[in-house]
């Protein structure tokens, strides 16, 4: 029962580790950004799932309803999503520039070329 | 003018002089006049403080707080009076000498030389007048930095290497040991002011005091106590006026002066006596005296021999401090004055030999007394003073050091003093004796010694000197003044002695 009750946290952990692993293990710069995104998504899931109150509805004031889910984490996550989007955009823009400058977006090839620069 | 005003002006004048020297770079004669006038003004200011201090007063000026609770303070007490007096007087003399030497040797970058000289003297005055350990440390480091370009003046690869040794040893010791000692003292005691009887008595335990003593003594690298003495022979690569200044006046005296100040005003003579560790440093100083004298004997390069002689003589003063007896302190303080005059004479003569005869190795100087009699007589006078024979002033300082050793119950030290005097005879008198009594034909071929001699001036190799002239006139004047000083100090040591007495018996 414990496991199912905490399933959201397990998902968060799986996503976090997956994302982190991708960032570290893959050489392709775009894949790294993908991993970073997955890593950030795990945090979003963490916040959003923590906001859910048992028996609570969407946090919109309505007649006769007394239990709402917590709106604050949702707000926080909107902010974090925006930050994530900006980061991804910036990262991808950098990848495009790197491709123009180096001709490759594989990290190991970049390291080889870096020695000569 | 009040003593307080004189103190502030004495600190300001050398740095102003340096700025003026830089501004008058285009006209060498004006520039040199600026140096001489600055020196004269400084000496006047310093002397004006003398009556107050000789009367037992300790005029003091507080400038500003650098750290909360720690200010830059200047307090003139008898030991500082001696050091400042020597430094300011000998600056004038060295400037006269430098004019002859730098022009005779056709040296480059003379403006930089004179300007940095002024700054170095200013730093020495700052050290002499420092009222607490922080102020002293600030000017101690300024002195190291300002003398570095002087040591590496020639800009050759040898100069650069020597500069590294110089800076490396002096900065390492001051940062790694002295600074820690100072901060630790501040942290434990809450003050860094130089106080009669010391500030540590009763505040620190035996082991802590011993470690602190070690940190101070080894941290004062300018005192050239072994094993941190290598910077001194390395600094010989500098032009001779710099060596004369470093070895008689500014840097080395600043070092042993600091040792004496720490011994008398931070630890206190009685407290120092009660610490066992002071004995270990006493023996270390004694060992330095003997070992460096032996090394001096093996050196053929005159400046190198004089450098090791200086290492040895400096440890006399450290001896005086570590004996932790009143007479020892008096002897150490007097030796600051006596050794200054004696050693500067010797270095001036060494420089004269370089400029006039282009000779740096002692083995080439046979018979040089015949063509440079005045210089060689002066060398004799300086040697006698260092050896400690009458009628030279060096006798008095050795006398009191020996008395101090007896007072402290260290009979071995008396023996060390006597042995080292004999060694001094061996390695110093050789030069004037061979200079007067050996024939010039004895000189070995100059080519054999090229490689060992960084000072060897290759511009004059092709000349076979026949008519060796005496040194340039400014050099001779300077040599004459300092030799006379050695003699005068024998007949008239009272000023120095009385000042030192004030310290131990206020």
């Amino acid at each position, binding site marked *: 029962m414990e496991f199912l009750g905490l399933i959201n946290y397990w998902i968060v952990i799986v996503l976090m580790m997956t994302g982190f692993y991708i*960032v570290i293990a893959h050489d392709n710069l775009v894949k790294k950004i993908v991993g970073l995104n997955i890593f950030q998504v795990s945090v979003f899931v963490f916040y959003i799932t923590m906001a859910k109150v048992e028996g609570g509805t969407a946090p919109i004031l309505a007649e006769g309803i007394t239990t709402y889910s917590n709106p604050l984490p949702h707000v*926080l996550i909107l902010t974090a999503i925006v*930050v994530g989007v900006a*980061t991804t955009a910036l990262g991808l823009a*950098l990848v495009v520039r*790197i491709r123009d400058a180096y001709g490759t977006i594989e990290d190991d090839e970049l390291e080889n070329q870096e020695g000569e*620069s | 003018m009040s003593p307080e005003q004189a103190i502030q002006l004495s600190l300001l004048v050398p740095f102003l002089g340096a700025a003026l020297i830089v501004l008058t770079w285009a006209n060498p004669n004006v520039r040199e006049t600026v140096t001489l006038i600055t020196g004269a003004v400084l000496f006047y200011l310093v002397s004006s403080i003398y009556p107050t201090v000789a009367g037992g007063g300790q005029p003091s000026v507080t400038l500003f707080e650098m750290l909360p609770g720690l200010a830059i303070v200047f307090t003139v007490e008898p030991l500082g009076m001696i050091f400042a007096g020597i430094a300011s007087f000998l600056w004038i003399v060295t400037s006269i000498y430098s004019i002859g030497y730098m022009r005779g040797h056709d040296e480059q970058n003379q403006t930089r030389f004179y300007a940095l000289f002024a700054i170095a003297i200013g730093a020495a005055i700052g050290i002499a007048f420092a009222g607490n350990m922080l102020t002293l440390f600030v000017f101690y*480091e300024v002195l190291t930095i300002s003398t570095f370009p002087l040591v590496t003046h020639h800009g050759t690869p040898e100069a650069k290497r020597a500069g590294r040794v110089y800076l490396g040893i002096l900065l390492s010791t001051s*940062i790694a040991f002295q600074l820690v000692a100072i*901060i630790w003292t501040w942290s434990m005691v809450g003050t860094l002011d130089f106080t009669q009887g010391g500030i540590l008595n009763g505040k620190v335990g035996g082991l802590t005091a011993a470690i602190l003593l070690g940190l101070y003594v080894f941290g004062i690298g300018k005192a050239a106590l072994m094993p941190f003495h290598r910077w001194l022979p390395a600094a010989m690569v500098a032009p001779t006026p710099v060596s004369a200044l470093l070895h008689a006046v500014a840097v080395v005296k600043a070092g042993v002066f600091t040792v004496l100040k720490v011994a008398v005003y931070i630890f206190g003579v009685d407290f120092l006596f009660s610490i066992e560790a002071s004995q270990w440093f006493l023996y270390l100083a004694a060992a330095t005296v003997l070992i460096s004298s032996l090394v001096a004997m093996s050196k053929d390069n005159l400046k190198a021999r004089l450098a090791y002689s200086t290492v040895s003589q400096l440890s006399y003063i450290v001896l005086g401090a570590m004996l932790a007896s009143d007479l020892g302190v008096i002897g150490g303080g007097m030796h600051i004055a006596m050794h200054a005059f004696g050693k500067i004479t010797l270095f001036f003569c060494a420089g004269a030999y370089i400029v006039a005869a282009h000779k740096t190795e002692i083995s080439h100087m046979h018979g040089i007394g015949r063509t440079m009699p005045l210089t060689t007589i002066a060398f004799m006078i300086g040697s006698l003073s260092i050896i400690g024979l009458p009628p030279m002033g060096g006798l008095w300082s050795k006398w009191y050091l020996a008395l101090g050793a007896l007072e402290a119950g260290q009979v071995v030290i008396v023996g060390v003093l006597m042995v080292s005097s004999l060694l001094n005879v061996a390695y110093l008198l050789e030069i004037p004796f061979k200079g007067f009594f050996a024939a010039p034909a004895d000189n070995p071929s100059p080519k054999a010694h090229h490689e060992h001699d960084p000072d060897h001036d290759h511009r004059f190799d092709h000349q076979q000197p026949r008519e060796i002239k005496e040194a340039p006139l400014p050099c001779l004047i300077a040599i004459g003044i300092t030799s006379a000083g050695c003699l005068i100090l024998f007949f008239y040591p009272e000023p120095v002695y009385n000042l030192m007495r004030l310290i131990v018996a206020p």
Partner: protein
Amino acid sequence: MAALFSSHLPALQVVLALLAAPLCVMLRRPNAAWFIATAVTWALLAIAVVLLGRVLDIGTITYALGNWPAPWGIEYRIDLANAFVLVLVTLIGSVVIPYARASIAAEVEEPRIYLFYCMYLLNLAGLLGIAITGDVFNLFVFLEISSLSSYVMISLSRDRRALVAAYRYLIMGTIGATFYIIGVGMMYQVTGTLNMVNLATLIPDLVDNRTVMVALAFLSVGLCLKLALFPLHMWLPNAYTYAPSAVSAFLAATGTKVAVYALARILFTVFGGSSLIDDFGLQEILVTFAVLAMIGGSAVAVYESNVKRLLAYSSVAQIGYMILGLSMASVIGMTAGLVHLFNHALMKGGLFMVMGCVFFRLSSVQVEDMDGLAKRMPLTMAAFVAGGFGLIGMPLTAGFISKWYLIQAALEKGWWAAVAAILISSLLAVIYVWRVVEAAYFKPPPKGAAEVGEAPLSMLVPMWVMIGMSYYFGIDATLTLDIATGAAETLLGGVQ
């Protein structure tokens, strides 16, 4: 009107820069953008000084954003610690921006120059926001604003290696920020509040809660990545080396410093009232890494031939000094760490500006290319020597003051290894500074060396102002030390 203005100063401190940034984009012309950036930075400096004055007079200032009271609204809370940081950041900006005009014009392609100023203003806004806020999530927002803009600034260099450096910094920085926000989320889960003061009152009751412990870990690691504490410093050397010189100068002097402040705020204000820090042994962990940073950073710097990278590794070491001071958790240790924040910013900013002048004329920052430079660029190299003395810790420099306090703090705690580490890294600093000095003053210029003159006045003057300030605060350190001590007492005293 003036009263209205003056009562909203805390908000204006951040908002002014945010508003000015799009102005730069709209105007597009390099000179106009520079002018706006300079004017805004100087205005922000004035605001920061006024705020500092107010805090010195009346104590902690609070400001509720949008008049929503804490803990529901976001609160700006200014005590001595952050007023100090606000002044520092704006001061550095005020000196670097006039310098940047010529430097950026030489190093960044013309069509992109206005973008630099826009990003600079965003970065400034972000840094000031981190310093001024009293809400942990708000800190994250500003953290990311400053980070993202710094990634862009670094990538603006003509050198293509800057792109890779910016990319790597982006990856590592985002991971760090994400760690931070995980920590914030966990704290929110347990306490229900994001306000720092509120958290501080709630945490002592939750000391046994495992979520809180894990949150502390995530927060610390995230921030340590941002402040480049060894071994999380990997992004720093390349980022500082390949960025345009004015960017290196500004970031080296502000970015990591603000992150150190943020760590201090979290550890001491938020978690300080509890025993968690001691339970965790966080002190010991930080000290260990600080010492490793000090010695490792200095040691690597000795072997670097790219002078900017040398200075970058020196920065890693100096950050170790700051963390060492912080981890002592004694008033004097904290004072040492905080005052070194200030002093190092001045010195390192000045030194990077020197390298900017060198690059301006030589287009290189390799030590070999700087042979004999002292004859051709005397004022610039003199500034390097002066700044180098500060890194070594010679008396009369600000570096001496920091070192004095650090050694005193370590001696009083009996941490002999730390004292030894401080001394060793100072001696290593002598070596790596002197390497550059020897090349510039003792070696003859390389064959075919360019006949270069001094850097332009618009670069020399700000550089010397920065170095001059580091000497001023080294000669009379009472002002900075009094403020730092007050800040340390505030941080260690917990929440009133």
